[in-house]
């Protein structure tokens, strides 16, 4: 046994609700374990307890015992434990503190006072596993999100810990970087390293793990092999289930399936191919918007170019967003998506090309005027909250624009579930609640277009469901929406139109089904069709073969 929690409870200093509440668990050498749970279920606290940060770094009350690689964490300091168990933290930026990738990777070994030949050997091994050879002399802060994540993993791997923990490693990765990380994790499994991945999104990793442990309110709520756990009743635990599994549950099939092949086998076995297919086709996943071409344009972009540091980030974007459209903007990290949305409210002004909001050139109007029409909801709500109460935070915009509509704002408070929070400090809220506050603040000025940057990133299932229902209602009311996302399931559910941005150009534009069928464009942007789409295609092929 490599990790053992015996009746562990823990309270952060000054906080009454326990973060861990009588947790018992055991992990054996060589196992690949997924620890799943919604935010606030105790996942990150669990990680900190595994490497001794609790109780040595975070004080507070710890009851019970934690054994890592046979060592009692209470008796051994973080500095003794870190060669036995390593943790890749959630935020890659805050764990890279050296000048070069190489210095970063060897830091832990230098701490141990290791000699140069051993350091060289381990460096070579870890950099090969994490595919960092070509980046060795770069500064970590100039790397992409996926690369930083790999460096963070490498810093731990050089220490050759017997237990490796990763805290929500996929949150900010695009589909391609996610796939790359999965590949690395699989090769680590073959090296015999025990791995614990902490996540609330299951579909990225579920096929690679031996066991799932579900956390709920600081203790184990369910555990076992993936198929067994997911066949049980787990809907109360706020997990983001694999999309095919959800589809099957809606259809009344209980057996859990994780990929398209499994789904086909299961459907054949139960003789459900035809009814399932008919139903999938019947409930068109695609929110249609037949009227869109007739509506007047809200934002028009003509041959928009953007250069930064001598590189062209945007290379001639032509785009018209019409009233009532719900558009998903997709593409790799670094493809220019965030840059593009900054043009939509005048934060960036075109150097070459033209941007018009309701027909007027954005170069001639200040942001403060344009943002009355176009509101942005940023990925990180902490970038904007500064008021003492939630109410004041939401009403900041309307007060500035002198556009306070009490009826509309009260309705927003209700819709976003903010009524019980109005007098609380926005700083004290959970990340999901903060997201809702910033969303409500953006809508409070009744914008003509609302733009959301990665609305679902880092959000657990309950919070994602809330966003889904709010967005659905806005769409019905005819609100024009554009969102940037890597979450194709979310995009397929909401967007009437998909845009793929790749290498500064829009390479696909149409309904989700049309875009997903354009396999070259999808591949170029590192995207894969949703499971639902893949399943429909697979069944279609089967039926064609029969006839």
């Amino acid at each position, binding site marked *: 046994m490599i990790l053992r929690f015996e009746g562990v409870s823990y309270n952060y200093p000054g906080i009454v609700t326990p973060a861990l509440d009588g947790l018992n668990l055991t992990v054996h050498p060589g196992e690949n374990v997924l620890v799943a749970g919604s935010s606030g279920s105790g996942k990150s606290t669990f990680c900190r307890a595994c490497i001794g940060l609790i109780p040595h770094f975070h004080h507070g009350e710890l009851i019970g015992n934690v054994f890592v690689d046979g060592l009692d964490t209470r008796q051994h300091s973080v500095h003794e434990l870190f060669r036995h168990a390593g943790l890749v933290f959630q*935020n890659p930026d805050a764990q890279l*503190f050296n*000048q070069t990738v*190489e210095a970063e990777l060897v830091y832990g070994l230098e701490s141990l006072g290791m000699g140069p030949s051993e350091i060289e050997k381990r460096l070579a091994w870890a950099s090969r596993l994490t595919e960092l050879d070509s980046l060795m002399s770069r500064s970590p802060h100039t790397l992409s999100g996926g690369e930083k994540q790999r460096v963070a993993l490498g810093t731990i791997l050089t220490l050759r810990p017997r237990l490796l923990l990763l805290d929500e490693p996929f949150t900010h990765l695009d589909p391609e970087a996610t796939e790359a990380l999965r590949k690395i994790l699989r090769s680590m499994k073959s090296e015999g390293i025990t791995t614990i991945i902490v996540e609330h999104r299951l579909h990225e990793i579920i096929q690679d793990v031996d066991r799932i442990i579900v956390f709920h309110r600081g203790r184990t709520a369910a555990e076992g092999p993936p198929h067994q756990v997911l066949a049980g009743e787990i809907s109360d635990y706020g997990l983001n289930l694999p999309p095919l599994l959800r589809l099957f549950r809606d259809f009344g099939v209980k057996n859990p399936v994780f990929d398209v092949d499994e789904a086909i086998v299961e459907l054949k076995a139960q003789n459900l191919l035809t009814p399932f297919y008919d139903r999938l086709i019947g409930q068109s996943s695609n929110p249609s918007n037949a009227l869109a071409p007739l509506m007047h344009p809200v934002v028009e972009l003509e041959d928009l170019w953007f250069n930064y540091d001598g590189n062209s980030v945007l290379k001639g974007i032509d785009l018209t967003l019409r009233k009532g459209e719900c558009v998903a903007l997709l593409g790799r990290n670094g493809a220019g998506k965030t840059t593009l949305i900054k043009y939509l409210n005048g934060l960036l002004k075109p150097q070459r090309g033209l941007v018009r909001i309701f027909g007027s050139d954005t170069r001639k109007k200040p942001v403060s005027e344009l943002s009355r029409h176009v509101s942005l909801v940023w990925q990180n709500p902490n*970038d*904007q909250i500064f008021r003492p109460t939630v109410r004041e935070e939401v009403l900041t*915009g309307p007060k500035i624009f002198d556009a306070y509509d009490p009826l509309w704002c009260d309705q927003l408070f209700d819709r976003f579930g903010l009524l019980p929070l109005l007098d609380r400090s926005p700083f004290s809220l959970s990340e999901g609640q903060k997201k809702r506050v910033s969303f409500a603040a953006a809508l409070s000025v009744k914008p003509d277009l609302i733009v959301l940057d990665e609305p679902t990133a880092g959000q657990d299932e309950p919070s994602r469901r809330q966003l889904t229902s709010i967005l659905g209602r806005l769409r019905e009311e005819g609100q024009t929406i554009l969102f940037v996302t890597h979450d194709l399931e979310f995009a397929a559910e909401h967007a009437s139109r998909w845009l793929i941005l790749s290498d500064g150009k829009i390479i696909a534009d149409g309904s989700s089904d049309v875009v997903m069928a354009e396999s070259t464009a999808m591949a170029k942007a590192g995207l894969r069709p949703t499971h639902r789409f893949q399943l429909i295609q697979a069944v279609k092929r089967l039926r064609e073969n029969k006839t």
Partner: protein
Amino acid sequence: MILLMAFSHSIFLAASLGILITLVLFLRLSLLWFNFLKGLGFAVLTFFLIAWLAFDLQTGIVSGLRLLNIGTVFFLFFQTTPPELLSNGLLKMGFPYPFTFVLSASMQFIPVLIRHARNIRDAQRARGIPIEGGIRSIFYLPAFAGPLLIQAFKFADELAEAMEARGFGISGRSFHHEPRFTWIDWMAVAISFTVLTVALSIRFL
């Protein structure tokens, strides 16, 4: 630097500025240097004017040139010395590791903080908050400073955890690239001392 302080004749100062500018050109740093001058130029001008008005033109020119020289020396030093080498050097001289580490790491995080600051500025401007320019922006200072400070504190906390978990502060640390005093370094020291001695003897003897 000692030289710059010792010499008060404008010709010497102009000559040393010439040498420094040649170095700047030689190291292909001229563009960066011009950007740097945008900041320093104002200070030099003010210094020159004050010294001129308070004393005479000669003192003004000398003071201005001196400041320009010192600024350029600092510029060259930091452009050509990676923070890591600087901190390693200090470490070898006997400074404690936490001190030298903080010195190099804080430079490392400047770009990260700038990125945070830029995101916050964009986020607030997009809400119509006038956080740059104008008298009104003073009222909205918390809109910028609040989120920035809170994120910086959170960042520092997370960083401290990560450093602890990688063994920061354990005694007996080894160094993968151990800095060594090679013959080039001895040569540099010897040349510097010779030049200094010669210059000082010209000035004072």
